[in-house]
């Protein structure tokens, strides 16, 4: 039972649970104590610093007044919250504070939300009766995101604590002392020269106008802004954000600390990368290419032209000469409609999307091992794991908010973090073991760990016996992978493999977190199966804070897969070769569904190049930059007879189109996104789209109508209702239920609360299946001619092919161009310095790019991002495919590096 404490506050007897602060106890009986530096809103994250001394109260028997925000109640305490003595002390303290505050509230951005203003109002203190010196610091406007005016700072320390204890970044701290105390980075350099990642959490907790968003300056007073809750359009984390809108313009983005998986945290993209929405280059009208030039036209014309063209192609070459790329950036409803359009209207299964390029091997691998290809556990659970194995995921850059959970697990709860990654990524800072293996040797590495686990008897025998099958064949293979042998393959010292195996097997629950470093290989499916083996071997599945957790790259890549925007699977992962499944959809849609599985993304490009594929409909994707071997992609796109692209900008791919449809962004339409933890969340139409741009779902409906198949929906909730009928795991998901908080599928009926942890009692496929997996080397290995391994990935400040982030001014300013990371050892041999231009070439192409000498990659390995068209990594990558999942090997190819004379 909870211990209770009796005390008297302002003459009222009150009984409260022990451990409460005086302020909380007072609050429980409706007594308000003014406070400034402490804000109960942030209670979970920030401890009171008790530095403003506004919340002081009188306690009988105590010599001085005490800060009620932090002082715990005790039995028999007699508290006076508003005596004359208290009032006087508060007043003088506030006047002291105001005596050093620029009283420019008339023009202060924060006015209306300012907590100092609020306290001054509550205490009735209009100005200070004290005079004297004030601090006079120059206002720092040197970075694109945050204006720092420390003349307004009240030194509450919230920003310092947020940076250190929520973001684990430690970019800022108190500097100097006494009256000269100031928040500063190391050596008081500008933020952009510190470890700051511009997550903006400091801005969101700042009680005064010391930290403000640069982009909101002069664009609206706090009380004029309307807040609308929606979901961030960037990565698969699926953070809940609030758009602050005035006059149909987004003024700033904030996050509610009580809502969503992010609990108020955002990354730089989510917080500041929204100006692409109002970018002048947004597509405003449909375009038709006439004589090699795009001409604006009316919708009617563009739709009719497209429908006629598609019909013509279908008649002339058959439906399989047309293919469609759906989009992981679009909503579930749109993906559902798109694949319905391709299957029912066009009559082909040639529909795929970029999941092929990121997690096709996850879908294939986990479906084989467990029965469903999705993150087995939830994001929040990571915080309570005892051990986390992060592999092939640059979590802090690609999934920053999930990285926060992992960091919290380590820093707050003492979890052990193992990072297995060829690069020394930032997560290594938090890790107890870093296994820096050679790119493409994942299977060997994890087989080595499992070899140790078996040898030392650390496996979960009960779990293996009761819940799995195929163990014996698997064991035979793993027994061959002695750590000594594995050391020779992976380059990871034997002791480290043994240590990692012991830590993972003995700290339970242990979670595996992985991403594209695992999947984007010709052995992608094998890699995934190996991780599934590892989790099953130690019984780390079907329990909270454990599991195998693929981090999906795009905001709705999970949903796009769920919706069947895949050439071999119908919505809800029903196989296209299953006759009953086909019949179910054929009945619902009133058209026959072709039985032949369609082409995957890379296969489509191959087919187009060969002239087999004649027409393509691409919705919100940019294969020109995202697909491997871009030179070949260009040839393929050029060769198409007819290409329709639907996007918000004229992307690199759209340049090749015959027709371009202007679509709308996430802020201009209704719908749902399914994030990486299978949570279906609501996005909303908050602002009006530019000119004639239309939501993707409407465009599909209109086009379908022109093609002679009626799709009539008033709004996306009706599409969701149709999905609910056809996809059992979405059966219980309606817009009403997810108005405030999303639901995690499977959610089969209206009363189902959603499923945070999969495979609890039994696996989706019954028993978990161990797969014997042998190590196979990558397709292209370095040789004398191309001596380096190129591996690719993302950076924090950019996203995917840059369609959105390259149209965000701030993000471009802070990270303007791509670089190639080269290990210092190699740089010395090549006589290359940071900032030098180099030419990186593979057998498929070459790019000129700036070099950055970095300890992150191993010697012999170089790293590039794929965001920049000016230095497109995918001109170099190889389009060799995983035989099962058809995912290309983005992560390993051989390149050569030459200096470029300027």
């Amino acid at each position, binding site marked *: 039972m909870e211990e209770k404490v009796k005390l008297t506050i302002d003459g009222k007897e009150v009984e409260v649970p022990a451990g409460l602060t005086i302020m909380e106890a007072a609050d429980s009986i409706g007594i308000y104590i003014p406070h400034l530096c402490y804000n109960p809103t942030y209670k979970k994250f920030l401890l009171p610093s008790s530095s403003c001394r506004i919340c002081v109260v009188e306690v009988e028997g105590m010599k001085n007044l005490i800060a009620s925000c932090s002082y715990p109640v005790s039995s028999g305490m007699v508290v006076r919250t508003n005596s004359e003595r208290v009032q*006087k002390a508060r007043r003088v303290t506030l006047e002291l*504070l105001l005596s050093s505050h620029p009283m420019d509230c008339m023009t202060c951005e924060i006015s209306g939300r300012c907590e100092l203003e609020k306290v001054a109002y509550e205490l009735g203190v209009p100005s200070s009766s004290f005079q004297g010196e004030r601090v006079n610091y120059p206002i720092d406007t040197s970075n694109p995101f945050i204006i720092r005016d420390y003349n307004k700072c009240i030194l509450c320390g919230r920003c310092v604590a947020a940076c250190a204890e929520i973001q684990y970044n430690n970019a800022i701290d108190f500097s100097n002392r*006494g009256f000269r105390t100031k928040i500063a980075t190391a050596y008081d350099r500008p933020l952009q020269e510190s470890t700051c990642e511009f997550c903006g959490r400091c801005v969101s907790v700042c009680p005064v106008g010391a930290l403000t968003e640069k982009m909101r300056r002069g664009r609206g007073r706090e009380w004029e802004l309307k807040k609308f809750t929606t979901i961030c359009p960037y990565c698969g984390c699926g953070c809940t954000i609030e758009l602050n809108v005035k006059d149909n313009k987004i003024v700033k983005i904030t996050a509610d600390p009580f809502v969503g998986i992010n609990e108020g945290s955002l990354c730089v993209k989510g917080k500041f990368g929204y100006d692409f929405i109002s970018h002048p280059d947004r597509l405003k009208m449909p375009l038709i290419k006439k004589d090699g030039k795009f001409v604006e036209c009316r919708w009617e014309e563009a739709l009719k032209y497209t429908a006629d063209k598609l019909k013509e192609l279908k008649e002339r070459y058959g439906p399989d000469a047309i293919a469609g790329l759906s989009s992981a950036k679009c909503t579930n409803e749109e993906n559902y409609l798109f694949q319905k359009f391709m299957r029912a209207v066009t009559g082909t299964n040639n529909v795929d999307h970029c999941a092929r390029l990121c997690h096709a091997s996850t879908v294939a691998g986990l479906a084989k091992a467990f029965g469903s290809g999705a993150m087995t556990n939830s994001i929040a659970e990571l915080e309570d794991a005892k051990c986390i194995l992060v592999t092939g995921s640059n979590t802090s850059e690609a999934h920053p908010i999930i990285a926060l959970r992992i960091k919290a697990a380590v820093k707050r709860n003492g979890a052990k973090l193992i990072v297995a990654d060829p690069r020394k990524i930032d997560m290594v800072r938090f890790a107890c073991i870093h296994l820096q293996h050679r790119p493409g040797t994942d299977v060997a590495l994890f087989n080595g760990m499992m070899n140790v686990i078996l040898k030392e008897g650390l496996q979960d025998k009960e779990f293996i016996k009761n819940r799995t099958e195929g163990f014996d064949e698997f064991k035979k293979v793993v027994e061959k992978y002695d750590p000594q042998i594995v050391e020779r393959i992976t380059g990871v010292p034997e002791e480290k493999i043994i240590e990692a195996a012991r830590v993972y097997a003995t700290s339970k629950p242990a979670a595996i977190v992985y991403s594209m470093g695992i999947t984007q290989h010709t052995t992608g499916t094998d890699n995934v199966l190996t991780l599934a083996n590892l989790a099953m071997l130690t019984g780390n599945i079907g329990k909270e804070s454990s599991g195998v957790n693929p981090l999906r790259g795009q905001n709705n890549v999970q949903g796009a897969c769920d919706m069947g925007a895949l050439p071999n699977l119908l919505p809800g992962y029903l196989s296209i070769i299953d006759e009953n499944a086909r019949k179910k959809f054929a009945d619902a849609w009133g058209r026959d569904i072709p039985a032949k599985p369609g082409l995957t993304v890379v296969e489509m490009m191959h087919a187009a190049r060969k002239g087999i594929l004649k027409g393509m409909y691409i919705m919100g994707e940019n294969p020109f930059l995202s697909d491997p071997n871009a030179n070949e992609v260009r040839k393929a796109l050029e060769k198409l007879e007819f290409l329709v692209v639907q996007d918000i900008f004229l992307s690199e791919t759209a340049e090749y189109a015959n027709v371009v449809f202007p679509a709308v962004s996430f802020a201009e339409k209704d719908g749902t996104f399914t994030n990486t933890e299978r949570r279906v969340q609501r996005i909303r139409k908050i602002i009006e789209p530019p000119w004639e741009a239309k939501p993707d779902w409407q465009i599909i409906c209109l086009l379908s109508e022109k093609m002679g198949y009626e799709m009539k929906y008033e709004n996306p909730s009706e599409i969701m209702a149709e999905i609910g009928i056809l996809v059992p795991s979405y059966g219980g998901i309606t817009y009403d239920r997810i108005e405030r908080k999303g639901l995690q599928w499977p959610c089969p009926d209206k009363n189902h609360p959603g499923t945070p942890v999969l495979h609890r009692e039994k696996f989706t496929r019954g028993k978990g299946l161990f797969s014997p997996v042998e190590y196979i080397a990558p397709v292209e290995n370095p040789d004398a001619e191309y001596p380096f391994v190129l591996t690719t990935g993302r950076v924090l400040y950019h996203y995917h092919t840059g369609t959105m982030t390259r149209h965000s001014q701030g993000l471009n300013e802070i990270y303007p161009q791509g670089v190639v990371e080269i290990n210092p050892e190699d740089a010395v041999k090549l006589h290359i310095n940071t900032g030098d231009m180099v030419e990186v070439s593979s057998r498929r192409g070459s790019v000129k790019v700036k070099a950055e000498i970095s300890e992150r990659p191993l010697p012999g390995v170089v790293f590039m991002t794929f965001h920049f068209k000016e230095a497109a990594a995918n001109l170099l990558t190889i389009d060799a495919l995983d035989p099962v999942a058809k995912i290309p090997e983005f992560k390993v190819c051989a390149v050569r590096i030459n200096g470029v004379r300027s």
Partner: protein
Amino acid sequence: MIKRVEEKRILMENCVAVNLKTAEKRIFTSKNIAFLKRRYPRLKLRTGEWLPFESPDASIEGYIKKGGYKALEKVLKMKPEEVIKEIEDSQLIGRGGAAFPTGLKWKFVFKQTEKEKYFVCNADEGEPGTFKDKVLLDQSPHKIIEGMIIGAYASGASKGYIYVREEYFDSTRTIEKAIGEARDKGFLGINILDSSFSFDIKVVRGMGSYICGEETALFRSIEGRRGIPEVKPPFPTTSGLYKKPTVINNVETLANIPHIILNGARWFKSLGVEGSFGTKIFSISGNVKNPGVYELELGKFTLADLIYGLAGGIEGNRKLKAVLPGGASTRFLTKDNLDIKMDYKSLKEAGTSLGTGAVIVFDETISIPRIVKHLFDFYEEESCGSCVPCRIGTKRISEILKDIIEPATVKVGNLYGTDGANMNYLTKLKDIGMAMKESSKCGLGQSAPDPLLSSIDFFSNEYLALIKKVNGRKS
């Protein structure tokens, strides 16, 4: 005048170093004793017994010869509870200024179930006018070390730190050397004196900040963080250094421990008076003939005994004006308080406190507002800046005092009092002083206004005279 005080302060510290050789003698020299005997005919001065400050010997051989580490041997045969009981019975209270019962502190930490505990010696002696710990560090390092080992044994700590004030270069070296010697002899390290008890001490040099003498700021400083006080509770006994239960004792407190263990609580209580048992080392400075360190039984002697007896009276035989009895952060006493007994209770009753036992004496030629301004220059410099009343309060008080005292140097022009109301300045000073005293986060801000507020109580005429001059100049 200000300058003179400053010189004096520096001189005083030098003075200690110079006079150290004679310090011991001074307590017992015929001249001083003769004076005390005249005043207290029936007084029996104790000699030959071990008091914290007696028989200094920095070398381990000398210390052992005089019975050093005997208390440790005795303690290792006792149970920790018994050791704590002995200290509790002695009613020893902390000598660092806050006067918390030492035994109780040990007991709190002993009762904590955490495995890792720390024992910290606070040797960051920074209170203006205080230099007693330096003498102990220099002359009796082993007594402090022995006290720490005993304390650690009793409270269950396995790691110790001595946080020495940065400016005490020599003391740091002395204590480090002593720790090395003690380790060599098996008094420190694993299995001390072949017992199952292990304990070791690390010396940490202070970061040159007054606030680092505050216990939570001191912990942060050891941890390598910014030295600012933390929110209390939790108190160090439950969550101190590295968030573990921690005992933190002053140097002088620890120097008492071996004596209490060897001679027993009853012996200790035979010294001093009820509520203030034992002896106290006083550092006397200011306008006295013989500034220095003196050890006296608590409550047996008056302020006059200290000033006129031990310290040889006021320089130039001038008249006494004021005394800060327990360091710079205590309330002033005046010549009316000369007969006050020097112990915790009596000084508390007089509205001030014994503090660190630093008696600073001011004669009739000293301007009190100038002294207070001098002190506030110090506080303004040393305020950590964490809480509002102290950060801005010290600044504003300093500015107002400057305005009154050196109006010519104030560029902005005079802050208040243009309406001719002389009390305006004093009201502002009192308002800020009270807000600081009542609402500041730690002891620095809470006690810094004490000399200011008491000086306004006792010497308001001096302030008013200055203010009148300022207003005269303005009009």
